[in-house]
């Protein structure tokens, strides 16, 4: 299998005394697809940024390696982060030299052929996300980090993007770490789903069989229900007691 290996040991990260990550241990094998889920604010993006080298852990170690050569790591951020002053193609080939032809190829592959010379401001949200994905893939990373890449998309576009990602990974396999809010997305796409709670890994769920999995699978539906109900009891999730307060807050005052 091609792709980088990731070893995370006792990783912790605090922001001003607040411990966001609290002893994370995580091993990802070469070519493995791992999804991270958990309540909002639990530290998923923080973990991903540390793995990407954009943030330093307070303590603990991180190792990313690949036999033979240094591992390329690319991150697709929660927002598309396209440069508005560069064309679509200019954005995709950012940081590379002489890869215009590859850029055009990859844009065709994700359905943006012919849009190379337009500026991001005229693209739709889904097209912008696809451009950002093309940019991450152009570098042929050994480790691909995706932070809610399809979070802002409508259900139909999201399903198309999931298909696209799966087929691109089938053609050139690599290690992927995906952060998502969408439990079903995690179950469909990954080899393993990791649930984070209070800065720790609460659960690691290995999924059988090849990916992507079929959408209608009964076992998958059961797992989805179970994961969602366990996530609902996490802190950060809107608790039932809060629902009453919300209702009061929304009541018209007279």
């Amino acid at each position: 299998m091609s792709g980088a290996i990731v070893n995370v040991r006792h990783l912790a990260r605090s922001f001003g005394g607040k411990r966001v990550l609290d002893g994370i241990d995580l091993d990802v094998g070469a070519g493995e697809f791992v999804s991270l889920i958990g309540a909002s604010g639990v530290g998923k993006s923080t973990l991903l940024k540390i793995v990407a080298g954009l943030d330093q852990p307070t303590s603990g170690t991180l190792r990313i390696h690949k036999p033979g050569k240094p591992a390329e790591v690319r991150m697709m951020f929660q927002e598309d982060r396209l440069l508005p002053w560069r064309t679509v193609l200019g954005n995709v080939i950012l940081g590379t030299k002489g890869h215009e032809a590859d850029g055009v190829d990859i844009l065709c592959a994700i359905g943006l052929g012919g849009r190379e010379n337009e500026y991001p401001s005229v693209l739709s949200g889904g097209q912008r996300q696809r451009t950002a994905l093309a940019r991450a893939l152009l570098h042929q990373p050994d480790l691909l980090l995706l932070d809610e890449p399809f979070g802002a998309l409508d259900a139909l576009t999201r399903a198309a993007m999931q298909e696209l990602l799966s087929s691109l990974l089938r053609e050139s396999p690599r290690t992927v770490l995906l952060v998502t809010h969408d439990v079903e997305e995690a179950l469909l796409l990954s080899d393993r789903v990791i649930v984070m709670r209070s800065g720790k890994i609460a659960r690691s769920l290995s999924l059988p069989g090849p990916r992507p999995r079929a959408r209608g699978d009964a076992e998958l539906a059961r797992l989805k229900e179970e994961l969602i109900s366990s996530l609902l009891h996490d802190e950060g999730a809107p608790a039932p007691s809060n629902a009453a307060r919300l209702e009061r807050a929304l009541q018209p005052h007279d």
Partner: protein
Amino acid sequence: MVDATSGNLSASGDLPPSGLWRLSGRVAWQLLPWVLPVLLILLWHGAAISGHLNRSVLPGPLDVVDVTISLVNRGQLQHHILVSLQRVALGFALGAVTGLALGIIVGLSIAARQIADLTVQMVRTVPHLALVPLMIFWFGIGEEPRILLVALGVVFSVYINTVSGIRSVDPKLVEMGRSYGLSKAELIWSIILPGALQQILTGIRYALGVAWLTLVVAETIASREGLGFLAQDARELLRLDVIVLVILIYAVAGWLADFLTRLVEARLLSWHPSYSQQGSRT
């Protein structure tokens, strides 16, 4: 409400605009800004020939045209305009390059900011025209004081806008650039400067106005050439028509400078939704 909308719709449906109609509409739209200035000049002219205007207070447009022709024939007007243009260009270039360089350094480096920003902010509060007597004392009435004064007027607005433009660049884009392996130089060239460009150009446009203003004052005080001198000289000779001519030239020059920077802006910021083809109508 509903009736008005449907009425509009049917009216445009009954009258499909022909190509010629639309073209003349476009031309009329382009000419619209000139209606008011032309009207004002006509009013001025009317007041002059009807005798409502005391010519020893304000000469009429035709008097100004006459004096323009005679000055051009003697080769004086071209000469003074050229001298002034040269001064403004030199002073502006000097000030803009200095302000830009200083602004980029201070914008990029926290250490440089800590060292220089307080000083620059203090010096900035001194009106640069207050330095005129000192400049004349140092340099006499040579070219240097005027060019330096223009540069001083320009440098701060370019500096301040460059610094704040660089500071307002989205840090998320910079973080993205770093994670995509851009070197420091590439980061500056591909992300930081384009992100700051809009505000830098705003500073430059403002600075152009300051440059003209400074030049007028500097030339009025100590010069034997240039438009400011021409006006000053005319005042001593009680030539009101020349003074009015110089004022008109300043107006046209200011408008031209603004027009040119807008062209540059539209070109450099063509990626920007509000500067794109569709947006430039306003």
